[in-house]
């Protein structure tokens, strides 16, 4: 495994030739392990209620935004809209409110999602094994949980209140997810909170530990870059494109079979180029506000982040084909219990 010193020196090395070497190796590994395929998914925000105060997030408990939780009927409407685009892999998201979006609500949402999608993932508040198990049995096959930063001091500074303040409970969440039977776990850090080299090193160590103890799980990682959110008063440190590209390449080379997800918070140009360097799964035509897909006044909603890539699913598929990639819409399906 790469050492922290090596990681620091790679990230600090500004020679374009070195970057190109890294990219070529990442391209080779990507082609060998994933071939010419890219999976597609879409996020769907169920609720923006949150009981944690994370200074960098637009959904945090003290931020004055319009709060909303989708009703069953609204969930159906939003899902029908996304499903019509051909997307089969849905990521359901909420703010972290144990009271407003408890397991029972999430279970219901997963149940509805089964009517529309073959694969269902969640990005919600951390839970206990039994609760994850319930969601797994209800039809969820993936869970994303990001540590945000592995620097305990910084973690305490940006997570001011709520259950998310508990660093250890969050850190141990992937283990609890794995024990529940969930097939896919996504880990990640927020770029812009803390020292990148140290956070990435800790993320890699976390991932390695998970691979060792829970080998059956399929892992993926995400590197969301924090951006300034109007009115929030939080100024993230900037992560430049070169560093971002290096992280994707390094992850691809060091973890050849681990998936790398890329959201629409990145620009079309960068997203298109990163396909060759290790990204395996991209979102398309994302709406990042609650009810965003079917709202009549989408501009009045509060998105979790601003979408940079607004292309439709159809346009993304066209782009993939032009770049000689086969778009994968169906990559897993929950196996009906009636077959057991």
């Amino acid at each position, binding site marked *: 495994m790469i050492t922290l010193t090596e990681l620091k020196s790679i990230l600090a090395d500004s020679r374009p030739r070195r970057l190109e070497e890294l990219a070529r190796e990442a391209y080779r590994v990507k082609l060998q392990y994933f071939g*010419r*395929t890219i999976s597609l998914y879409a996020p769907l925000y169920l609720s923006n209620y949150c009981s944690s105060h994370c200074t960098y997030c637009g959904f945090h408990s003290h931020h004055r935004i319009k709060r909303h939780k989708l009703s069953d009927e609204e969930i159906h409407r939003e899902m029908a809209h996304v499903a019509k685009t051909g997307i089969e892999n849905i990521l359901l998201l909420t703010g972290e409110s144990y009271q407003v979006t408890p397991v029972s609500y999430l279970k219901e949402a997963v149940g509805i999602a089964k009517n529309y999608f*073959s694969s269902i993932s969640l990005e919600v508040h951390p839970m206990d094994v039994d609760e994850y198990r319930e969601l797994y049995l209800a039809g969820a096959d993936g869970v994303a949980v990001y540590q945000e930063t592995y620097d305990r001091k910084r973690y305490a500074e940006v997570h001011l209140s709520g259950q998310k303040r508990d660093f250890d409970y969050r850190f141990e969440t992937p283990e609890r997810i794995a024990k529940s039977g969930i097939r896919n776990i996504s880990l990640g850090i927020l770029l812009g909170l803390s020292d990148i080299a140290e956070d990435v090193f800790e993320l890699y160590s976390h991932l390695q530990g998970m*691979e060792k103890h829970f080998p059956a799980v399929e892992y993926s990682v995400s590197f969301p870059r924090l951006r300034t959110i109007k009115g929030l008063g939080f100024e993230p440190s900037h992560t430049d494109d070169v560093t971002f590209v290096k992280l994707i390449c390094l992850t691809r080379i060091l973890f050849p*079979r681990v998936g790398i997800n890329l959201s629409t918070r990145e620009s079309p140009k960068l997203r298109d180029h990163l396909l060759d360097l290790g990204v395996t799964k991209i979102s398309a035509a994302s709406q990042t506000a609650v009810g965003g897909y079917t709202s009549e006044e989408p501009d009045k909603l509060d998105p979790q982040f601003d979408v940079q890539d607004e292309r439709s699913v159809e346009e993304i598929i066209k782009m993939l084909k032009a770049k*000689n990639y086969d778009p994968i819409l169906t990559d897993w*399906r929950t196996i009906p219990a009636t077959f057991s």
Partner: protein
Amino acid sequence: MKTQQQTTLSETPFVMGGKEFKSRFLLGTGKFKNKTDLAESILSSGTQIVTVALRRIDLERHEENILEYIPKETTLLVNTSGARNADEAVRIARLAKEAGYGNWIKIEVINDSKYLLPDNAETIKAAAMLSQEGFIVLPYMYPDLNVARELVKAGAVSIMPLGSLIGSNQGLKTKEFIQILINEIDLPIIVDAGVGRPSQACEAMEMGASAVLANTAVATAGNPATIAKAFARAIEAGRLAFLSKLPVEKNMANPSSPLTGFLFEQ
């Protein structure tokens, strides 16, 4: 002039699961950049058995469906990719059958996302259950003679040992152990996984393997249809070499005059 009778490929047909196949090349369908490349690779190679992961089949049919690119006369071998244990493999197989994809199943039980090595113990369980339900079962396995014997008892129609890690193009890293399976197991041995170039497929056939499956090497080549054809021909060449009873490789020179001749000197 009297010529010696030549051995031909058709003398020993490849029979498995009650079907006879001319081609001994099996093609996997993952990782291709588009379905046209896949269709052309099937045609150029003349493969008659194609594996498809059920997880990738769009049962609801609103995507470009992979099956439209596979000729009707091709035997579809659905694989249980994604199954982490016997139970999941069995459920995937049943779902495939229910959805109308036939009863030929390549059992893949993988409980390790880093190396993608098959779980032999769970594979035996799945093979037994699915054979009993009437499936034609081809288990993918780590080449272990005892496991292969168990798979025979479980009702498999073929054994599919891995040559090296899936997608690694490393060739026959497990050569010695595959040779043991070829020597000891009466079912067709199909070398699967890690076969990265036609010469490696040829080598497996020279050893006496019944067939070879390739995927990554074809799908990620600059020209998939051409490399697929090269694989098919290499496999035929290897088969002919095996039938011709090629001389055994020796690691020392053979003395040209007998060492015990002195015993019979007059």
